[in-house]
Each structure stands twice: as C-alpha cells, then as structure tokens.
C-alpha cells in the first residue's frame, strides 16, 4: 500500500503544499487530534529563509471566483529559530494508513490503523546562491530533515528575475547545491514562466531528485473606493499568488508537460480538492499530490483524498483492472523513484 518517493517510504500519495498548513499553530486549534489524525504522508514546512521575515503588510488575502489570491510574503522566524524551535515540534509525526473501507467499519478506525512515520521536508528560499547554500548545508546537518525543497520563486537580487523562471540560472543554482547535501532535493517550480518544462529539465540536469509544481500564479486584485474612482491594489504586497480550483486546469497541464519531459518524480498540486482531482494529477504523471488551499476549507481534506485514492485502488483491483489507474497523459510506465508496493 505504501509509496516510495525519493527513497522515502510514505503511507500514501498525499502531502501538503509548502506554506499551507502550520502544524505548530494547528495543534493550538485541534490539540492531540491533529497528531492522531495527521492527514499528510510527508510534511512540507513553510518556506524558511536565512534571516527572519515579518511577511507582507495586510491585507493579505483576496477571494476570487473559486480561488484565493494570497500575498503573505513568506513570514518566518529565520533558519536559526526554525532549527532550534520548530524542528523539535515537527519531529516524530506519524499518519494512519489510508483506508478503503473505513466508513463501512471494515478497516480499523484511524486511531487503531497501522501508522507510518511522516518524513519532514524543509522548504528553503535564498535570494542568492550563497544564501541557498547556507540553508541547504544547515539542513544537511539535521537528521530530522528527510528532504529539502527549494523555493526558487524568488527574484534574484541582482537580475530581478525569478531564479526558477530562467532555466540556465536554475540549473546553475541547483548544481551548486547538489554537492552540499545527500538528502533528496526537490525543486518547487514556478508557473510564472514561458516554458515550465525547460525549467523542470534544468532542475533535473542540475541534480534535483524531484520537482514539485505548481506554485501560485501571479495575480492581483483591484478595488475602487467609490464608483469612478481610480482602482488601487487591494493586497498589501501589491500582487500575490492565485490558488484553489481556479488554477486546477492550468496545474494539470503544467504537471503533464513536466512529467513528459523529466524522469525524476513529480509532485503535482494546484486546486486539488477531491479524490478525482488527485487521480487526474496522478494520471498526468504525478507521483505525489499536494493539497494546499483545500486544507483551508477542511483541515482533513488530504486524509479524505488519501482514503479515496485507496478506495479507488481497491475498486480497480476488485474489477480485475490494473491496480494503478491508466496513465492517459504524459508517460508510459512507472516514474523513476516510484515503487508502489
């Protein structure tokens, strides 16, 4: 039942998108129930930067048709505080195995199901290759961190271009980081580029073990204080990133394009709210599916989706079909790094 991803054994295929689920804050709301019913097969931290960042001034959110623009600005207490304070609180998470038939009472309830460790993936962002190097080297020293995700959706301080939007620059940065860690490196690709597949190929050429996409689509919201008045940007950060069902079709296309181009495993995300959406991502070539904005509407959304995928697998097996859903798009055969047991 479990899934292998970059050498890690995961309970199922559903993880969180970086910056969409704060375990430490959620414990204040849900207490022990959060740990007992932990929904994600791996936990991706919010983006950690070298120095503390307060984040953008409010307002930070704007609801769109079937979506959300956020302009949060990567608030975090910085690398040193993450290592000292957050890491111990993110260590030792476990998740119950998904159940095809828990609702029927045939599988043990979540609190008695077989449990899997939840590997911790630390997401880091530097504004220079040197900053990235210090972040990756710090992660390399900590056994609690299973893998590192690179947030390359950040402007190069010298060129002003997003590091991840330029294949040449992206390959150089990943190649400089590759020798600094033995842990899996996942590159979180930006969708705000003309050619995401070339960026994915560049990440792979630089030595990435996996790519994840899509990050949010750059977006803005305008408001008028009165009819006829000039419009001004609502978000404190000016622009933000669009997520939710509004981006799902775009995400699916980008995941399919990237999966067809690279041989490393792909983490697909963007508007996934149901098992059917997750199955679409897997059919498009994703090994893992990340849930982000859907968790805002229901913190247990990822668990529901993981259970649904298990149910689908069981249903397919019962029907005499292949246990894996057919891949209609992208690739033939299993992706490298994936080995469903």
């Amino acid at each position, binding site marked *: 039942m479990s899934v292998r991803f970059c050498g890690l054994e995961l309970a199922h295929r559903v993880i969180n998108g970086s910056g*969409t689920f704060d375990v430490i804050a*959620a414990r204040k709301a849900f207490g022990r129930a*959060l740990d007992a019913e932990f929904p994600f097969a791996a936990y991706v931290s919010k983006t950690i930067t070298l120095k503390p960042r*307060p984040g953008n001034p*409010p307002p930070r*959110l704007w609801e769109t048709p079937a979506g*959300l623009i*956020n302009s949060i600005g990567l*608030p975090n207490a910085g690398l040193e505080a993450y290592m000292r304070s957050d890491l111990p609180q993110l260590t030792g998470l476990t998740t119950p195995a998904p159940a095809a038939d828990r609702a029927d009472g045939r599988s043990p309830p979540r609190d008695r199901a077989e449990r899997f460790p939840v590997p911790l993936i630390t997401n880091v962002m530097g504004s220079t290759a040197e900053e990235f190097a210090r972040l990756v080297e710090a992660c390399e020293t900590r056994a609690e961190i299973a893998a590192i995700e690179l947030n390359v959706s950040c402007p190069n301080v010298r060129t002003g271009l997003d590091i991840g939007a330029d294949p040449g620059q992206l390959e150089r940065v990943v190649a400089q980081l590759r020798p600094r860690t033995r842990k899996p490196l996942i590159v979180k690709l930006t969708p705000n580029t003309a050619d995401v597949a070339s960026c994915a190929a560049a990440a792979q050429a630089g030595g990435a073990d996996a790519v994840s996409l899509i990050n949010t689509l750059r977006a803005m919201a305008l408001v008028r204080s009165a009819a006829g008045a000039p419009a001004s940007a609502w978000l404190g950060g000016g622009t933000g990133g669009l997520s939710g069902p509004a981006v799902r079709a775009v995400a699916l296309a980008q995941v399919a394009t990237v999966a067809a181009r690279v041989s490393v495993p792909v983490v697909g995300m963007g508007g996934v709210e149901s098992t059917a959406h997750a199955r679409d991502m897997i059919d498009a070539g994703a090994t893992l599916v990340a849930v982000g904005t859907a968790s*805002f509407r229901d913190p247990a959304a990822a668990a529901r989706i993981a259970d649904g995928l298990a149910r689908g697998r069981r249903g397919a097996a019962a029907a005499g079909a292949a246990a894996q859903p057919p891949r209609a798009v992208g690739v033939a055969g299993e992706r490298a790094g994936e080995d469903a047991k």
Partner: protein
Amino acid sequence: MAPFTRRRLAVTGMDELGAYRVLRVADPDAPEPDPGQFAMLAAAERWGGGDEERPYLPRAFSIARRVGAESHFLLEDVGPGSRRLCELQAGERVWLLGPLGRGFRLPPARRRSLLVGGGAGIAPLAILQDGLAGEVVVLLGFRDAARAQGAGLLDGARVATDDGSAGHHGPVTDLLAAELERDPLALVYACGPAPMLEAVRAMCAERSVPAQLALEAPMACGFGGCFGCTVARRGGGYLRVCVDGPVIDAEQLEHVDPHAGAPA
C-alpha cells in the same frame, strides 16, 4: 479543542432579529466553546454560486450562544458568503469547523465588566454575558434602529445609534466614556467594526483600563494555516487573529487595523 475536521450539521432555525439573522445549528458533539471563540461556516449546498461566483472560502463567525446542543451565530448580509448563509432554512446543512481561537479571559471577582459592542460584532458578547457572574454593563452601538434590534441578543443593553433613531445619538464610545468616568477600575470587553475598536482601544489606553478586543479579519482557514488574518503587533511583527486571537489584549496593538472586517 476543535475536532480535526469540519462537521456537516443541520440548520435548526433562522430567526429574524431586526436587520440581523440568528442562525441556529444542531451541533451535539461540539466541545463547549469559550466565550469569544469562533467557527468557520459554509453552506453545504450552493457555496460558490453567488456574486462573481463566490463565496469559495468558509467565513468566520463568533459563536453568539450555546443553548443545549445548538450553536447560535449572528449574521448580517454584507457579501456573498454572509448572504448565502442568511438564506439558509431549517433542515438545510452547513459545514462547521470549530470552536477555534482564544476567547475572552473572564474577570476576577468584584470587578465590573463593561461589554462594548458594535453591529454584528455584538455576537461574542452574548455568550460572554451568559458566563459572567459579577456586575455587567452592556453598551451596544448600531447604525440605525433596525440594526439596534440586535441588542435583544443581550440582556439589559444600553443602545447608541449613529443616526439617533434609537437610544443615544452618537457613537457607543460616548456611553463608554461616561462609564469609565464613573468606575475607572472596570474591565472592558469589546467587539465590533475596526473604527469602533480603535476608539475603544485609544480610550482605554488613555485611562490605563485593561481591554480585551475581539478582532475580526478576513481569514481563509481559521487555524493558523493561511497566515492571512494578521494584524500588526505593537513593537513589530504580526499576530494571527485566528490562533493568537480573536480576543487580543488591547495593549498588544498599536492600533486596530482598518482593513480588519472587510465585507465577506
């Protein structure tokens, strides 16, 4: 602590209260909320079919009262989310996540409590009043007489209206100033629109009166995940209204952010 998933619950009633509605929901398994805690609400059906194909996200509402197995919420139609919730009828279903957040800390014995509310922000003061034993003064401000009927949610409220159509003509902080003159040792509990909260904060700061403010901010999740509901903290950095609040000691704030309470 809230259960770790949203619950699909039956609407048991929708009562008119002047310009407001009181949504009643059967929630027998809910943990007992602290006064000032909130829940994230969404209609189970047709959530997304309103103006501009919104709402998409659930909306945060203070728990106004807990009566037996029912939770009560005070609604006002101010946007596509609250409008859809106002349309609900008994027998329909809502999604509810909660109770969430840090509520009011109750006063020590023999201190008078001044409850100051404005508009739909009076909701958490009702459940607070239900739990207060000592002397309680309730001061509520509304735009007009239709909204002032919302004062019926609490017992013995004194009312102020912006247009003078009911009670004192002027801001509710006029009533608060008079009360603080009379008893400078009172404790203040306030919830309402940002300008009202800012006026309460400034008045209490000037007189060194401790005040607890229940803040409102647009939020996507309600449990610390989205980092969207931040307000500036005195001395730098931000507080998340959902997990650091919604009830926040006034002295933690330089001012109450005017963006708090955007129409939803």
